[in-house]
């Protein structure tokens, strides 16, 4: 293959571009990329819509980023809103705000402050979530899953924005699972901690199980 030339793209203001292959993309303002985008780094301040898939090594978002395809990114950083119509695949995501995925979301390390809505499977080797709002995923799976409610929600609830911060999932499976304020049908794991405010249909565990006194667990079963 011939040596590909990747150029930088910088856009400020209300702009649009056809997409394609780039080195660094820097967008400030409101922009639309009308096709698939493949780049090394995309930094966005403001609002960006990609009408296609987005593939990048690094994605930095301050504001809103909407992808009408799938997102593949090694590193994701930022705050704001990430709306992906299809699936997300990444290595390291640290995000404050809201993540929406229409498919699966598979990540190596996912550290989130905020809320998410994943239509399919949310899987991560390490998932650390501080909930600020309602979160939902069909299935959650991984090695170490720690899901907590942010302390700040007590304050936020006074002005009640969007309902309570809790997680709803059909299934949560991991080697180490720590949950708070979670409604799930089934939780499976080796070491499971069911924290305050949980409503769990069935817990299956191998080694240890701790249940907080305010949690509701219908049945638990050691394998």
């Amino acid at each position, binding site marked *: 293959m011939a040596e590909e030339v990747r150029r930088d793209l910088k856009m400020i203001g209300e702009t649009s571009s056809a997409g394609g292959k780039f080195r660094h993309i820097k967008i400030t303002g409101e922009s639309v990329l009308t096709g698939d985008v493949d780049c090394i780094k995309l930094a966005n301040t403001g609002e960006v819509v990609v009408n296609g898939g987005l593939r990048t090594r690094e994605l930095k978002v301050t504001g809103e980023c909407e992808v009408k395809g799938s997102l593949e990114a090694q590193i994701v950083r930022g705050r704001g809103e990430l709306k992906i119509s299809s699936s997300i*695949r990444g290595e390291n995501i640290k995000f404050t705000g809201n993540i929406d995925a229409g498919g699966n979301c*598979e*990540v*190596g390390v996912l550290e989130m402050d905020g809320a998410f809505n994943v239509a399919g499977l949310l*899987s*991560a*080797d390490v998932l650390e979530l501080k909930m600020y709002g309602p979160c939902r995923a069909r299935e959650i*799976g*991984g*090695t*170490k899953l720690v899901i907590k409610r942010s302390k700040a929600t007590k304050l936020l609830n006074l002005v009640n924005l969007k309902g309570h911060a809790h997680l709803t999932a*059909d*299934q949560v*499976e*991991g*080697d180490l699972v720590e949950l708070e304020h979670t409604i799930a*049908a*089934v939780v*499976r*794991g*080796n070491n499971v901690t069911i924290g305050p405010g949980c409503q769990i*249909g*069935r817990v*299956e565990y191998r080694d240890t199980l701790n249940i907080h006194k305010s949690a509701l667990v219908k049945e638990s079963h050691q*394998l």
Partner: protein
Amino acid sequence: MERDLISKKDLLDEKGISYGQLYRWKRKQLIPEEWFIRKSTFTGQETFFPKDLMLARIDKIMNMKDDLSLDELADKLSPLLPDYEMRKIDIHKRNIVSQVVLERFTPEDADSVVYTFERLLYLYVVDKLLQAGEMSLEEGERLLHLMREHFPKFEGKPCDLVFIRKMGVSSFALLSVPAEMYYESGVKLIARLPMAECIEQLKGKLV
């Protein structure tokens, strides 16, 4: 053809792997998405896997994961055709396809002719069925023709090769999976080869 299924829990117990490993391997695409079969049971939705495929795959991953990184493993297991080429003489030398097949089906090519992975795959499949003693050389010719004409149309999507015979008359077909097929009486299913498996085997031979 209903495949034997194994539940996720049984799989983890049998192979002694953790949830984390399973999800990590899925994320690294070592286990194809279409093997995750969701079925409802009395405890709600559960995940099942095609038993024989899954057990073989887990063994393979466990054996190789000490020597290769997960990403290298993924390349090896991916069903996409690699950009791999080989000269005819090397195919013979490394005994990837038998001499008989090379002589019969590629007599016009010189030893230095380079074969793409795709062409190599066709010859490999023909060779495999011939070696199993299930197919004649004439049938091999027709199979090769079918593969050349239709296999690229799947564009890397999983497909099976079906080889049937009735009253001595044989025919071949390629079909996308998962698919169920029912035959009239008198039809004998001689072979059904998942192409993804063939690709994997061939890759294993090349690397």
